[in-house]
């Protein structure tokens, strides 16, 4: 065990997997800017390749290499840059196995940061995993802690499906206790970050931290919240969420995405479908407003979920505050 930052934990996982398995490749723009780069030093220029600014070619090439038995990790830096290559991300990589009747697998990882709501403005701060959650054939991971960042990356690399791995930029330097050596977090297993009997809060990525803060505040008012971190959106551990809702009868979801592009909307629909009899109140979502993240800081804050809004939502579902517009 060691306390290391989230970003270092991710790199540790990639490094570890590349050591373990020669077929793991790592490429992307600017990933090794000097000869002393530790990946380049350890694994050489065949396996670690700097690419031009050509997301479609990068990801397409990863698909071709994956079809040939390699396991590429593509560094995309920003989730928005995946949008540049949507044909490869949605139409090619995840569909190939199925369309060939199972003749191939496409093991690859698309590593992309998201949500950098620190003034990086409209095109660099989106939370867009909701767009990918429903793509058949694509797995989606969203680690919220350093340990999970390492464990989910290792699992992603070993998974035979294409994986969209979204790491939150505001978590980059946040440290956490990370196991040494091989550490795998399975896909499709939510983590219960805090137990409680009054309300279930499902929080995604960076929102987990906010939800835990909100839970502390609620506790001082006598409300015990159960905070669940799904860790992967696909596969989604709906079972853990339903079990929690059965216990608490109340559900609030917190997602930094815009309301109608959110993953929370999909999860809420699944719970409404399969867990309706457990619910004692309507499901509430705390999301960003349906708008592009603005540059100006007070505007940014206005748009995004925060601890106050989460506390407010919980109070609403518990019938303790009037419903606001």
């Amino acid at each position, binding site marked *: 065990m060691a306390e290391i930052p989230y970003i270092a934990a991710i790199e540790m996982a990639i490094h570890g997997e590349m050591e373990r398995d020669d077929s793991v*490749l790592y490429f992307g723009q600017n990933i090794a800017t000097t000869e002393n780069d530790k990946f380049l030093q350890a694994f050489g220029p*065949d*396996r670690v*390749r700097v*690419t*031009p600014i*050509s997301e*479609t*070619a*990068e*990801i*397409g*090439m*990863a*698909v*071709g*290499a*994956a*079809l*040939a*038995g*390699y396991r*590429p990790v593509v560094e995309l830096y920003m989730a928005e840059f995946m949008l540049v290559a949507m*044909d*490869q991300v949605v*139409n*090619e990589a995840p569909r*190939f*196995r*199925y*369309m*060939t*009747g*199972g*003749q*191939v*697998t496409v*093991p690859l990882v698309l590593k992309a940061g998201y949500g950098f709501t620190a003034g990086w403005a409209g095109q660099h701060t989106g939370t867009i995993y909701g767009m990918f959650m429903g793509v*058949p*054939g694509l*797995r989606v991971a969203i680690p919220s802690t350093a340990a999970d960042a390492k464990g989910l990356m290792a699992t992603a690399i070993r*998974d*035979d*499906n294409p994986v969209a791995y979204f790491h939150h930029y505001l978590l980059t330097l946040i440290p956490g206790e990370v196991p040494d050596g091989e550490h795998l977090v399975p896909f499709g297993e939510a983590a219960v970050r805090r137990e409680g009997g009054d309300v279930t809060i499902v929080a995604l990525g960076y929102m987990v931290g906010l939800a835990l803060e909100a839970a502390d505040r609620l506790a001082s008012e006598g409300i015990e919240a159960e905070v669940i971190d799904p860790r992967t959106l696909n596969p989604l551990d709906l079972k853990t969420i339903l079990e929690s809702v059965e216990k608490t009868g109340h559900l609030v979801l917190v997602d930094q995405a815009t309301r109608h592009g959110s993953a929370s909307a999909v999860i809420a629909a699944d719970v409404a479908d399969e867990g309706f009899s457990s619910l004692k109140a309507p499901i509430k979502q705390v999301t960003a407003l349906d708008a592009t993240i603005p540059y100006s800081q007070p505007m940014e804050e206005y748009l995004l979920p925060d601890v106050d809004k989460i506390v407010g939502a919980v109070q609403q579902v518990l019938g303790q505050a009037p419903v606001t517009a």
Partner: protein
Amino acid sequence: MWRIRHFEEQVGVLKRADQVHGLIHLSVGQEGVSASVCTQLRDDDPVYSGHRAHGHCIAKGAPLERILAELMGRDGGLCRGLGGSMHLVDVEHGFMGATGVVGGNIPMALGSALAGRLRGGDQVAVVFFGDGAVQAGHFNESINLATLWGLPLILVCENNGFAEFTPRSAHTNVERVSDVVAPYEVERETVDGNDVLAVWEAFGRFLAEARKGSGPFLLECLTHRLRGHYEGDPGKYREAIAKADWQEKDPILRLQRHGVSEGWFSEDDVAAVERESLAEIEKAEQFARESPFPDQRLIAELVYA
């Protein structure tokens, strides 16, 4: 080539009889390139193609009956009925697929070539595409990266002067695909795509170099598309190609005339080849018709590995 020609003709018939479902693109008239290129390759040389892929798939060695079964949506098809015409894949013979997105798999061919390079050995990747794909951003990204890394990849452009429903001049100012890639200094050549021997020779030369690790190469094959963009479109712009005119250009007929006059084979030999191909196609159709449709449970098994 006769196998391809007659196969495509029969697919057209089956399509009109509603036995082949959905969107298909026939390559009647373009058999020369498929045959000259693919028959020089091995099973472990991965080949990618566009949406007009039946000919490439056949020439690469995929069994006719499994291609036809796929087109008829059967479980006995190459892709168990889940892919169809635009997603024909036969991994066993190195046919890594047709694609429904124009040029969508050109970057993927780079990945295959990279894998070949990393493994050592002399495997070569090939990707077919039409002139229409050349204007897409991903084509230029791919040429750039392939030349930057010198990948053992041969790009074969079947330039039939039309993309979907409009002539090349409506798509770009640059008439020749070879001129589009000139700034990247990729080794390239333009040949008459309907001259089987010319394509054979040029591709063979590039292949020999690529097997030694050089690349990429671009072979532009000037050819003509006989039927419409997809089976069912009127093809009015085809009026210019008169029947007699086509007889001169037809890749199969040209090779036959040449071969017979050179004494390589006789008219009887040619007739025998045609008969055999027709018989093979009849058997393929029987196989396809007898193959069941895929089980619904297959979906759950195949979405994720």
